[in-house]
């Protein structure tokens, strides 16, 4: 979604900018503006400050990094090339959105697995609760449910711990 949004903003800006640039530069090469720089910087985190996106970071270092992005854009680099360059230079921590490869993929996988497991457990519980004839003797059923629920909850808590 974010990508679409950025794309649409970029498209609008690019068309706006094209007019300006054509007027100013008389058909020369299109120079990247602040918004182009920010659109790339937004996908990166400041390599030195904790938890600060690069597009809003105020430090001198980040201003320099943004200037660097501008130069790279001017030189014709694509967004992805610039991002890859930052990852090589400063490590994976500059990525706002964690990778989906290798060990990092667990950050994405585990919540999905947890929701899926939770749904299965929920369905089992509901099924076992449904008593079309209310006079069914319950104690043994109850016990098995309890230990099952216990096991599941314990498992989930283990994951949390």
């Amino acid at each position, binding site marked *: 979604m974010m990508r679409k949004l950025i794309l649409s903003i970029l498209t609008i*800006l690019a068309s706006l900018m094209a007019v300006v640039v054509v007027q100013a530069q008389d058909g020369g090469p299109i120079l990247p503006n602040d918004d182009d720089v920010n659109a790339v910087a937004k996908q990166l985190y400041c390599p030195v400050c904790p938890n600060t996106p690069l597009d809003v970071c105020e430090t001198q270092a980040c201003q320099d990094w943004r200037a660097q992005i501008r130069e790279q854009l001017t030189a014709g680099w694509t967004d992805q090339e610039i991002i890859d360059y930052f990852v090589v230079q400063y490590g994976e921590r500059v990525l706002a959105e964690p990778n989906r490869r290798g060990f990092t993929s667990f950050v994405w996988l585990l919540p999905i697995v947890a*929701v899926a497991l939770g749904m299965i457990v929920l369905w089992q519980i509901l099924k076992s*609760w449904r*008593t079309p004839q209310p006079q069914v003797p319950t104690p043994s059923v109850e016990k098995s449910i309890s230990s099952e629920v216990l096991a599941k909850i314990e498992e989930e808590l283990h994951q*949390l711990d």
Partner: protein
Amino acid sequence: MLNDIGLIALFIAFALGAYSVFSSLYGGMKGIRKWVESARNASVLTFVFLTISVFVLVYALVNLDLSLAYVADVSSTAMSPFLRITALWGGQQGSILFWAWLMAGFVAVVMLRKWESDRVLMPYFIVTAMLTTTFFIGVTVIITNPFARLWHVPGASELITAVFQPSNAMPYIPEEGSGLNPLLRHFGMIGHPPTTYLGFTGFVIPFAFAISALVTGQSQGDDWIRTSRRWTLVAWIFLSIGLILGGRWAYDVLGWGGFWGWDPIENAMLMPWLTGTAFLHSVMMTEKRGMLKKWNMVLIILTYSLVLFGTFITRTGIVSSVHAFSKTALGPAFFVFIGFTFVGSLSLLIWRWNTLKTEHELESIVSRESAFLLQNLIFVAITFAVFWGTVFPLISELVTGTKITVGPPYYQKVTGPLFGVIVLLMGIAPLFAWRKQAIRKLGKSLLIPFVISLIIAALWGYAHRTHPGSFAGLWLTTFVLLTIVMEFWKGLRARIKSKQETLWVAFGKLVARNRRRYGGYIIHMAVIMIALGFIGDTFFKEETQGSLSVGETLTLNNYELRFNGLEIYPGSDGREVLEASTTLFKDGEAIQDLSPRRDFFVVQQQPVTIPGVYSTAAGDVYVLLVGWEEIGLTSSTFKIYINPLVNWVWIGGIVMMFGTLIAAWPSQKNLRSRSYVLKPGTPQLQPNAGD
């Protein structure tokens, strides 16, 4: 001299807290009432002595008694008396004392209430609640004592911070304090931290009741739930307000155009709120249907552990974050205590597992019960996703040695759809019947809101074709809002028809007679408003940046910003203010002058970016001064954000408070109905205000 009194009071509070734990434990185990009564008095006195300590510290902060290391650290001449008071919770030592004080206050109020049938819960309530309180007082006394002084040993290059005079050291009094972190020098300092702390500490009450119910074997009944319900609501609403005020504060001072950044500290606050919200709902299943007794216990244990975890990561900075301006040796103590609380309470629950008998009877999978369960599952799933994202950078570093960032895209993608389901359930679940819901009937009552919401969302979506993803969100919020309005309308129509009342009278009586139900609906509406704010932020936010010379304009959408000039002047609090004067135009017409600023705190060498904001119900135009020409001040760089619907977050917060007040207000009917839970032979019921 005065500081010594504060220090001594702190020691006494610690001793009293420890005494009340042991005394109530002994009294509870042996069944000796006088020991429990003694513990009760001791816990009230703990609060009294802590209050003395807190007042002494505030006095020292306001009067700038720089002989205390804490005062020298967070207070300064430049700060106003108001800010000096707020400095009580502006740093490590003070904030933990403040935490302990608030918790002791909650416990003292509960102690002073009339204990009737639930007297049996008292001994272990005191043990549980005072154990945590005493732990925090202990941390204050031993690890981060706010009454510690600065000492100078001749020949040493660094100062020593210690409570008592180290050998051959001389007291050292600095000439000036460093003062609060500039980001904290804001009016929001009076709102966000205290409300958050009240929310955090308030959860000790339902937790202590739950543990007490487990220990005493009273957990089979739901007395503990009835007794603690209102306290849970109080803690919950404070935490909610704390979250919203925190968002507002970030929006006002952090200068990145948003109010929620999925920062680890924000997440730390959100997690107990999520499980606490699930708990508030799951206890209803117990009250109405005698179900989910075990699950309630799991949720309150989880919530309270997350409260401690949140305090832990905020105060120790273990997960690096913009908020974690304080790193100390607190970690191990906290870690052990959280582990003890979590494992201890879970073991207790497992030990009592078989006594928590529940009656399960469902006629159909489609029922209020299943909706509640699904909602609970999703709240816990979101909590897990947030927890996992928050701790994953640590895990990654430990396992692979690679530092990574888990930023907003992760949280938006993973929790966004789950929040969507929660909102949907919020709309339809209240219409479900217990035990069994006929689908046809449900479909009939949902038809009108469904059709109208589809039309509205389609029109809206057509007007904003560039953001197709927003359509689902807008449909969802409209649909849920309409179902709630329909619920109100059904009740109103019945009253107007049968009792010939006017609309407003009917409304007042409808709400007053069913406070929990309609209070709940109002809270749900507030959640819709807040959801609107998030939809605006996620889908419709626009931004641009550009450098302007005086007289030039920058355009974003149908807005134009004209740069009129720049000036530098010395501000209060030891800051140098650089202020731009700009005019905002909408469709070519001037609508407001905005003055985005950059305040530079000279001593701390830290800038704070303060936006110029044009605010309407439809959204904000948020202007930041991000750069400027040093020479001549004739050119500046501005960043403009259009933040649609953002104000609905704050409005929603106010509505939420209002709804909670209605839901929690004790009504005459409630007081009367409570006589059922009294044991036979109990003297006449006294309405107890604190309950």
